[in-house]
């Protein structure tokens, strides 16, 4: 995608929907994943994802180059904030279990063998615990944590995506990590043993 991306963007800016769909297919997993982790439930994440892509197509002309990923995620975070405002409820009110993508084993998995059902279930538990922890954070810390530590984006890109400067990104990251850490430490006993700290995962 990175090779053809400027061409697709240029065509999509002229109104070529098929070209824009190529961009959608390239980024929709990232967008949905981010929206899901920020919003904590699939229905809101779908709405935010759909809204984000519609808005991206409408405002595509305002993209002047640079990181398309960061530009798109800026729209996604705004869509997520809109969803949070609309929902007007505490994120911890209702959480559905996250549907894990079975085709994507955990990064850093030691074995090439497919995940066993138990491993799958354990990862499901982990995902749910993390999601619960994330939803205890204020939205800006949550977004920053998701983009840096789950999506692996650089500070500068995250700064662009959140409309903040790098110093603010660092600050939100520090506080978010600490808050999540405190939550998970408290919940540690509920985690599958292999994920627990005391097992030696320092």
């Amino acid at each position: 995608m990175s090779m053809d991306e400027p061409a697709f963007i240029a065509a999509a800016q002229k109104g070529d929907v098929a070209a824009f769909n190529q961009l959608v297919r390239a980024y929709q997993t990232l967008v949905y994943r981010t929206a899901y982790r920020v919003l904590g439930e699939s229905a809101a994440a779908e709405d935010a994802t759909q809204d984000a892509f519609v808005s991206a197509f409408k405002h595509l002309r305002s993209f002047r180059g640079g990181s398309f990923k960061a530009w798109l995620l800026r729209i996604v975070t705004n869509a997520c904030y809109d969803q949070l405002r609309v929902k007007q409820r505490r994120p911890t009110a209702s959480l559905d279990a996250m549907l894990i993508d079975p085709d994507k084993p955990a990064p850093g998995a030691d074995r090439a063998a497919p995940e066993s059902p138990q491993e799958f279930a354990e990862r499901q538990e982990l995902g749910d615990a993390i999601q619960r922890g994330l939803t205890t954070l204020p939205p800006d810390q949550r977004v920053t944590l998701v983009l840096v530590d789950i999506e692996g984006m650089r500070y500068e890109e995250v700064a662009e995506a959140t409309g903040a400067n790098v110093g603010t990104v660092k600050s939100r990251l520090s506080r978010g990590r600490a808050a999540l850490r405190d939550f998970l430490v408290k919940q540690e006993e509920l985690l599958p043993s292999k994920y627990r700290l005391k097992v030696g995962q320092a």
Partner: protein
Amino acid sequence: MLGRKNFDDWHEWVEARLSDYIDNMLPRADRAQLEAHLKGCDRCRASLASMRWTLSLLKRAPAPALPHSFAFAVPARRDPAYGFGFARLATVLATLLLFLVVGVDFVSRFGGGFSASAPAPAAQVAAPTSVALVPQTSPTLAKSAESATALPSPPAAPTAARLFAAPTSAPPGSAAFASPTLEAVGRGGAVETTPADNAAKNAQGTVVAPRSQVAPVRITVTETPMPPTHTPVPPTSTPVSSATLAAQARVQPTLAPVPPRVSTDTSQPIIEPLRVTEIALLFLAVFFGALTIMLRRR
């Protein structure tokens, strides 16, 4: 930050910088301070360890499955383009036809009935006009027009025939347009009205029958005797042409009895359809034009 700190301050200071330290974002001096503190502080070491653990869990967290594709439905472009092209073509055709009909109408009404060279349809249109003008010029000509238009029978034909003076008339087209003389319209062009003085000229056989002839009839005003009504007109006309004229007379039913007013009346049946046609074409042009604009915007 260097300076005097008590033990508790160090914990907070270190705690606030653990995240940057893990990402290698601390300035060198701060990093040295932090590592020096960590060596002697179990609490801060544990804090660092738990933070690293949190980050590793985040990396190992499962990804939510994409519920469905968010790609847009690509609109079908063929149908709108097809409709748009048709609407545009219809607009152009309606507009062109409208201009044509209006032009013809205009010419027939204000052109005074051009003779010979006018095209047959125009001539036919102009004929009534010339008929209308005829009475204005000469009563005798009116009569001749009358008789000419009332030419169902061969006897009357000579009249018309002699009105169509082919030889004496200049090339139908040019002469007709050049001077308002009643020129024979052998080619089927419209006839011009003639001033009174031209009546004499007509007497020589250049009378113009107040109606056009569709067929390229070359009527030579010669032998055929004219009916007595054509006083100024010598009775000359060829049998052939008269026959043709008779036929042509039958072709022009609208030019039947032509009193001065009648000619005006006879012109109306032709103008009215024109009016209707113009209005219809105008509506069509506007309708398809609007349709074109609407389809274009899609």
